């Protein structure tokens, strides 16, 4: 795999080219605590080039000091990759599925379909206010990938249903395709429950079927 490093503010993001191809790019987003290598093992039939991104604090991307992660920052990571790739279809696993959903809604003209798969970090934290236990240090692994602060913060980030529904309305309104989101995951945390019955969301498909549909649009 070749790697391109893209600058996202103070972070150098590692974007791995998994496979050459002709046509629209496929962007793979890994689960929480994983890296691009975990995505490169997926069995995918896609004619275009396939790329896999290491999120901030993961894989070969920069590990920042002192945490401060949010899913919105990871969404911006994906946006930096899309600026490099142009129009793309996105496959996300675990927290990467949530990010794939967010970026598909936020950039409906760039993302030609997002496929959401099971994986680490799919659920996130509560959908409502909750206490935050005191966690003074990230432990011995601080400063190494996957960043312990990413694991701590992104595994308990709030994902209210009304938030994802607002995002989905943007995708439905502005996407060039009828069903820009494909829910393939079996695990259904509250944010997935909130969107799965909505217009614009394809369900009861497997990953390859969803990709075949998006390859045609």
């Amino acid at each position, binding site marked *: 795999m070749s790697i391109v490093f893209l600058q996202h503010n103070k972070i150098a993001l590692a974007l791995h080219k998994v496979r050459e191809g002709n046509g629209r790019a496929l962007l793979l987003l890994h689960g929480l605590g994983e890296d691009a290598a975990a995505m490169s093992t997926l069995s995918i039939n896609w004619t275009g080039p396939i790329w896999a991104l290491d999120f901030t604090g993961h894989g070969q991307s920069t590990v920042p*000091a*002192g*945490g401060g*992660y949010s899913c*919105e*920052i990871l969404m911006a990571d994906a946006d930096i990759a899309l600026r490099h790739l142009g129009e793309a279809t996105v496959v996300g696993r675990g927290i990467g599925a949530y990010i794939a959903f967010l970026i598909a809604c936020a950039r409906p003209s760039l993302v030609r379909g997002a496929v959401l798969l099971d994986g680490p970090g799919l659920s996130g934290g509560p959908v409502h*206010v909750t206490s935050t236990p005191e966690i003074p240090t990230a432990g011995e692994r601080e400063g190494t990938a996957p960043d312990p602060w990413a694991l701590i913060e992104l595994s308990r980030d709030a*994902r209210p249903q009304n938030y994802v529904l607002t995002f989905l309305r943007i995708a439905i309104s502005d996407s060039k395709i009828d069903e820009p989101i494909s829910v393939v995951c079996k695990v259904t945390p509250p944010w997935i429950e909130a969107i799965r019955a909505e217009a614009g969301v394809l369900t009861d498909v497997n990953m390859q079927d969803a990709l075949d549909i998006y390859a045609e649009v």
Partner: protein
Amino acid sequence: MQQETRTYPGARRPDRIRMNNASGVGIAVYEWGKESDPVIFFVHGGSDFAGTFDVFAPLIAAAGWRVVAWDHRGHGDSDHASLYSWDADIRDALSVMSSVTSQPAPVLAHSKGGALMMQLAESSPYRVSKIINIDGMPSKRRMPDVPDHDQSRLLASEIGSWLDYRHVATEAQRKPGTLQDLAQRRAKMNPRLSIEWIEYLVTIGARQDSDGWRWKLDPTMRFGGFGPWRPEWSSLRMVSLTVPFLGLLGTVDEPMGWGARARDISPWLPSGGRLEVLDGLGHFIHIEDPINVSNLVLEFLS
């Protein structure tokens, strides 16, 4: 280059300044008063810095308190971090608190700092003995009558703008200007504060480069923003607090305020909590009327 300084009646720079390492992020810490006095923590609001307490902190220190404040990450003289979040701000606060005492201590916090400290006090009640919250009690306000599709349109525009900014954030710099330029810009956000006070603040919260003054605030940070956080979550934390609570609220809306009203906040006060409404004051109550507010605070602390 020798940086220009200003004075302001009653303003006094801290007696001690140091850096605290919060998991690799340097946090600038300031203290007024004797080290042997009981500790109280002061927490500034969003886009502000600890120097905004330069008049108020000496009043509390003079009454026998060791006032400890800090610049949040990305603010004032603290490090510009790679990432910013609500939880990271709370962790940084705990790091500073731990560097001073392991005992519960009172906290006085303004604006966003107030909302942060309510979360800290609710999750770590053994850290906080009392809370004075100065207009940092966001509450759910009735949304204007905007249809869903228009709200989505507004959000789409906000998200797009934010994402676009992330692409150029690497090269972002604060706009330089004269000391007076920066003060005039700030005055638009702080319309009730005197220009003399704001010019004094420029000499603390900005740096003088060869091409002019620039605010030290990390240019990658933007006012406002979007995300899953909802202001009413702060109300749910507030009502859960068990420590003595004093809320201070002005009656005049300002650009940097939450726009909260006493009738919105009162139902969510913690048991035994007290809300003081100061007529005719804006968001920066402690700066507009430091003497009266310090008297209220000292009475509450006693």
